[in-house]
């Protein structure tokens, strides 16, 4: 364990902590362990090696946050009024911090492991709580610094040191506010739900948020052209409810000498509300968490199986899988992915994008026209080819077939008398197709048929064929491993982007061929459907003869 800077800093306040009734020595030890553990979240492959401290992941994420911070800081130079500008900047910073807190810190906030290890020891509750709070704050400050650092620097250059200092102070206050909001949200979720349901809700919430953030980013560019006009701000009563105005107000007073009651009152709120909220957080919410975290481990309450859904699933399974073992794997895979939270968290956002992105793309390319004009143009244009973007995004799902949180359960494959592992792979692949790819691309196709007219029905059929071809090709090319076999940790954080680009590229080629055949060859679409289907079937039948020797096994 190495010495952390944070701990050295805290050492200076040792007597302060002790005067609060906190055992500083214990506090320091707990934090040291926590920080060490955070540094050690490394791929399991390396777990046996002694003392590997992996900093890359952390440095990487800090780099990404700083980059976002840099983008935000561009706003400083746009010639708007300070009030408006700072509203935008604070808005983005608050949103980003809140989003990361909710997504990443549920693990710290809702940690039950801690409780079981620390509570049987002679550690006072106060000490444990303080350790937890400092731990969260430490990361909160790091992220905040990366996100707001560039803007702070730009402001220092643009507006001078006084502005800089006020803003810095406000950023600290913002942290307190974000802590409060995040915990309030989990507080609400915790009081309504329990057990598995609770974990599901958190999971869906995180997914929703990831989607929301990414889509919001898509729109920032568009927002600009809309908002590039003179803004006359007249305070209304509800403006008092928007946090960013509180924080922007004092800066406006400083640079624009706006001494009206609205700005003064907002400034007061910027100071009072975060401090009050942080107090409520410490006094009310933290104790509540301690009591209710127990619920996370509550697994009571069985779910009854819906008989009709069950029959439908069974019918689909026997329809698409001839082989008995393959069918068993098909059903098994569908049941597994229904309960894999990490899979959902990683996969669902990109699935949601596969539906949303084609539309965003259409509207971005047609941004000079009005909404109705863009829609109208679809009747005659080749805009429906945007479905290929969706196809590329959904095909990403294939990448996840061999990932699982419970990857250790995969020993069963070797214990079972399975002569031919290709049945497992085929069953799992089909399950993914029926669960994700076919419904999503099908839905996209139907929406576009409504928008573009029935003339594109043959094109949609071709796209479905191409989608299967792409997925099979991708599955064939990716490493041959058993389903639910690998830990998510082995997935490199950067490689996703590469894979998506590759898929995008192949899809682009497919779309090109699709377009060329349609334009220049008679019966081009029919020919293309035939070719794609035949290639897909050939790959499926001839290259999926996999034996146990071909399977990568890494125990």
């Amino acid at each position, binding site marked *: 364990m190495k010495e952390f800077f944070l701990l050295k800093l805290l050492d200076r306040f040792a007597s302060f902590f002790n005067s609060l009734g906190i055992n500083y020595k*214990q506090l320091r030890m707990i934090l040291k362990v926590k920080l060490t553990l955070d540094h050690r*979240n490394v791929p399991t492959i390396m*777990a*046996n090696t*002694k003392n590997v401290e992996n900093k890359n992941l952390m440095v990487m994420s800090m780099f990404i946050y700083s980059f976002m911070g840099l983008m935000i800081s561009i706003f400083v130079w746009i010639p708007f009024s300070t009030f408006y500008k700072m509203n935008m900047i604070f808005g983005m910073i608050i949103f980003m911090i809140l989003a990361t807190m909710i997504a990443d810190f549920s693990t710290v906030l809702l940690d039950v*492991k801690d409780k079981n290890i620390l509570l*049987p*020891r*002679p550690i006072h509750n106060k000490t444990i709580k303080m350790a937890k709070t400092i731990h969260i704050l430490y990361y909160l400050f790091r992220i905040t610094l990366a996100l707001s650092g560039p803007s702070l620097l730009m402001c220092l250059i643009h507006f001078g040191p006084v502005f800089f200092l006020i803003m810095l102070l406000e950023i600290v206050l913002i942290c307190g506010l974000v802590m409060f909001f995040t915990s309030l949200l989990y507080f609400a979720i915790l009081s309504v739900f329990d057990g598995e349901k609770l974990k599901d809700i958190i999971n869906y919430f995180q997914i929703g948020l990831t989607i929301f953030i990414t889509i919001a980013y898509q729109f920032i560019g568009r927002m600009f052209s809309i908002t590039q006009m003179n803004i006359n701000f007249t305070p209304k009563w509800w403006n008092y409810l928007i946090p960013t105005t509180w924080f922007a107000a004092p800066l406006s007073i400083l640079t624009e000498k706006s001494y009206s009651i609205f700005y003064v009152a907002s400034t007061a709120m910027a100071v009072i509300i975060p401090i009050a909220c942080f107090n409520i957080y410490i006094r009310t919410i933290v104790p509540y968490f301690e*009591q209710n975290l127990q619920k996370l481990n509550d697994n009571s309450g069985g779910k009854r199986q819906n008989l009709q859904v069950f029959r439908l699933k069974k019918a689909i399974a026997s329809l698409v899988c001839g082989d008995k073992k393959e069918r068993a794997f098909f059903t098994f895979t569908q049941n597994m992915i229904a309960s894999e939270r990490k899979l959902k968290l990683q996969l669902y956002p990109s699935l949601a994008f596969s539906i949303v992105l084609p539309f965003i793309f259409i509207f971005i390319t047609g941004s000079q026209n009005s909404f109705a004009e863009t829609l109208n143009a679809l009747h005659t244009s080749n805009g429906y080819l945007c479905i290929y973007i969706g196809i590329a995004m959904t095909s990403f799902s294939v990448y996840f077939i061999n990932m699982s949180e419970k990857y250790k359960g995969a020993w069963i494959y070797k214990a079972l008398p399975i002569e031919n592992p290709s049945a497992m792979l085929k069953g799992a692949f089909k399950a993914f197709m029926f669960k994700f790819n076919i419904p999503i691309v099908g839905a996209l196709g139907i929406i576009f048929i409504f928008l573009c007219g029935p003339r594109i029905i043959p094109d949609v059929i071709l796209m479905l064929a191409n989608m299967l071809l792409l997925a099979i090709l991708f599955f064939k090319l990716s490493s041959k491993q058993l389903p639910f076999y690998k830990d998510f940790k082995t997935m490199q954080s950067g490689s996703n982007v590469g894979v998506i680009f590759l898929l995008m590229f192949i899809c682009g080629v497919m779309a090109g061929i699709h377009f060329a055949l349609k334009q220049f060859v008679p019966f081009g679409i029919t020919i293309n459907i035939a070719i794609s289907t035949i290639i897909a079937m050939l790959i499926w039948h001839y290259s999926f003869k996999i034996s146990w020797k071909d399977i990568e096994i890494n125990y």
Partner: protein
Amino acid sequence: MSECAISIRDLYMSYGSKQVLNGINIEIPRGKIIGYIGPNGAGKSTTVKILLGLVTNYKGLVKVMGQDISDGNVEYKKKIGYIPETAEIYDNLTAREYLTFLGEMYGMSYEEVDSKAKKLMGLFGIEEVYDSRITSYSKGMKQKILIIASLIHNPDVLFFDEPLSGLDANSALIFKEIMSSLANQGKTIFYSSHIMEVVEKISDRIILINNGNVVADGTFSQLQVQSQEGSLEEIFNQLTGFNEHKQIASDFVKVIGA
């Protein structure tokens, strides 16, 4: 030394509407090994969790080494050692890091815990993994770490929940021997297990709970007399009102062969 190591009076506990403990009364003097047994869901681990301060919203009076544990003072935990049944460990730490961390939490010096832990690991024959991450350990090795972690601060009261799980026969033998010498030194051991043969052999006194009530409390021979049965397993079956094991077993086998 006259006071009890553990004293539980009228202990009630419920999770929501589910009543788990229905007024338990237990007095345990020092220097005894207590077998604490009962069917699944009888309230065994809840009792232990209350004694450890993991569960706090109980009703009744609970004292450990004479101290009422509800007053928020955590001093009494210094005298407690605990082996949980399903253990959470910070397993990304090495044994050295984990054990010294816990030792320091008990107020020991780093050097003291470090040398003690190393010696204990050596005695268990796993010294060579002292600086490896716990994730890489086998189940038996992890169990040994839990055993060392529960004893390193020389506690007076010990709560062992299935402590032998994962240990090979030789290590289990060592551990049983350790328990009886600790009891001879005046330490109290609260031993919870489903393996009746072991409980029967090592316990000075056996407490059986069922549906949140104490249904038997006494030495093994007292229980034998009371229930007219030979082995602890049979006593357990009788007192928990279970006598259809033969029928269920034969049905079970029939289903397999069908």
